[in-house]
């Protein structure tokens, strides 16, 4: 069997909400070990594509392949086990739990499956996964607040916590929905370095939806541009930045001078 050239392949994805076509026959591929950005104006369908990949929405037509798996045949709670993790645009944390416990729950899908016994065994003990949890906390720079309740953290650290929890899933594919939104410049620089390291050193494949162009253009290997639910361009950051259609629809004329 030939190794597929892409880790994630999206073919002819169409999503309708009532009469509205949110995503219209979108296709793109994500190469393993790359950082792939999905950009476009608000309402372009970027998050909708994410919600299809993570199985929160059922597309009207299209195919989603992840490695050897046809994602559309998988129940959504199996994705973590397959190696797909994501973060949300509006944070989805376990607010009453500590930072450590949030990340610990991220390891849920890795405990050995033992059927009925599983109900009572003390699996998912912190000990079993401690190294991975510690590593995720270190990587995201929140190891010093491990005992703080998630809801008590500042926004930047809450975002890092969501990322740490996603890393605890031990993903091969990481979907990040606006990881830089609301972060300060210094935090964005740290995020930039962190994502590049995750990709180059740990071999993760990252797909991100992002409006912060400084981040997108600096870290992405490939950029796909959506507008009104259709793909209008794709290419390297430099090619996309020079694309007339993208400038008109999204980046704007001034962007070229910045």
């Amino acid at each position, binding site marked *: 069997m030939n190794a597929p050239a892409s880790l994630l392949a999206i073919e002819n994805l169409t999503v309708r909400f009532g009469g509205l076509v949110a995503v219209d026959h979108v296709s793109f591929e994500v190469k393993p070990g790359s950082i792939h950005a999905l950009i476009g104006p608000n309402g372009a369908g970027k998050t909708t594509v994410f919600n299809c990949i*993570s199985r*929160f929405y059922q597309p009207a037509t299209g195919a989603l392949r992840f490695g050897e798996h046809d994602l559309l045949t998988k*129940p*959504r*709670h*199996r*994705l*973590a*086990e397959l190696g797909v*993790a*994501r973060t*949300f645009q*509006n944070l*989805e*944390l*376990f*607010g*009453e*739990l500590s930072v450590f*416990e949030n990340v*610990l*729950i*991220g*390891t*849920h*899908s890795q*405990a050995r499956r033992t059927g009925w016994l*599983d*109900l*009572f*065994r*003390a*699996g*998912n*003990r912190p000990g079993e996964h401690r190294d991975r949890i510690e590593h995720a906390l270190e990587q995201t720079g929140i190891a010093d607040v491990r005992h703080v309740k998630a809801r008590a953290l500042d926004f930047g650290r809450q975002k890092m916590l969501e990322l740490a*929890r*996603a890393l*605890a*899933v031990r993903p091969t594919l990481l979907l990040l929905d606006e990881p830089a939104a609301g972060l300060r410049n210094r935090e964005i620089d740290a995020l930039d370095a962190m994502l590049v390291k995750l990709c180059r050193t740990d071999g993760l494949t990252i797909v991100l939806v992002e409006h912060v162009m400084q981040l997108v253009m600096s870290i992405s290997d490939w950029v796909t541009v959506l507008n009104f639910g259709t793909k209008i361009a794709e290419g390297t950051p430099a090619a996309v930045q020079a694309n007339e259609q993208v400038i008109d629809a999204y980046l704007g004329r001034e962007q070229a001078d910045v």
Partner: protein
Amino acid sequence: MTWELFLLFFQQSLMSGLVTGSIYALLALAMVMIFNTTDVPNFGQGEIFMVASYIALVLLVFASVPYLVMIPLTLAAVFFGGAIFQRLVLKRVALARGASVNLVIATLGLSYFLKGVMRQTGIAEVPRSFPALFPTDSVSIGMATATVQDFAILGLALAAMAAFFLFFHFTRTGRAMRAVGMNPRAAILVGVDIERMRWLVWGLSSAIAALAGILISPKLLMTADMGIVVILGFAAAIVGGFTSLPGAVVGGFVIGIVENMVGLFVSSKAIVVAPFLAIMLVLLLRPQGLLGGKATAKKV
């Protein structure tokens, strides 16, 4: 009232309150578990409690099963009953775009169904008493008097609560159940099968109600209407904040003690209104409940 009498009443109501309170705490715990994971207050819980008590009675008295076998059998039967109800009825109601009011009505349906079935069997035709599982000899603590059975009830209920605390904090499944209660989307994302968690929670919750039934039945007169006791479990859950498991336990003891204090210090006729007075005071002074955390708006 003399100081002596005050002390006696105080100690006695504390003692009796702890015993009945432990049962309310179990019932509230069962209620809150279900509310957290399936977003529905279970109005059928009283009847689960009632049917479980009758199953225990039938096994013990009619089938002469020794009670060390009767207890696990009853708990298992009720566990599966609760789980099956969730799978067969609630899941479908929810899938049929069930608003939460439909789910509530489904649990009310369960309540009438179980009561009707119980009346049909004829076992509940005459009030019955449940044989004591523990000696009823009196023991004095300070000025208060209780029976060995009372201590057994309190001890076993506390042990069950401790077991659940450990389960919820230190097992993978228990932690996943709490995760579903706090944020179902995030729980799915880390790989929690929330449908599985939901029926497990219904099973566990029903088994807790069954345990409460087995423990308290020897002190009650059994009728098909005995499930009404669960109202006090509701009260306890509300006092505790309705989403907090420790709150449910605290609420149970508060209701139990308040009830007994009112009975001794005010009048035994006032016992019935005492829990509602406690609910109203809590709702007025601390609407989120004693341990309900800060009242915050949910993100849309």
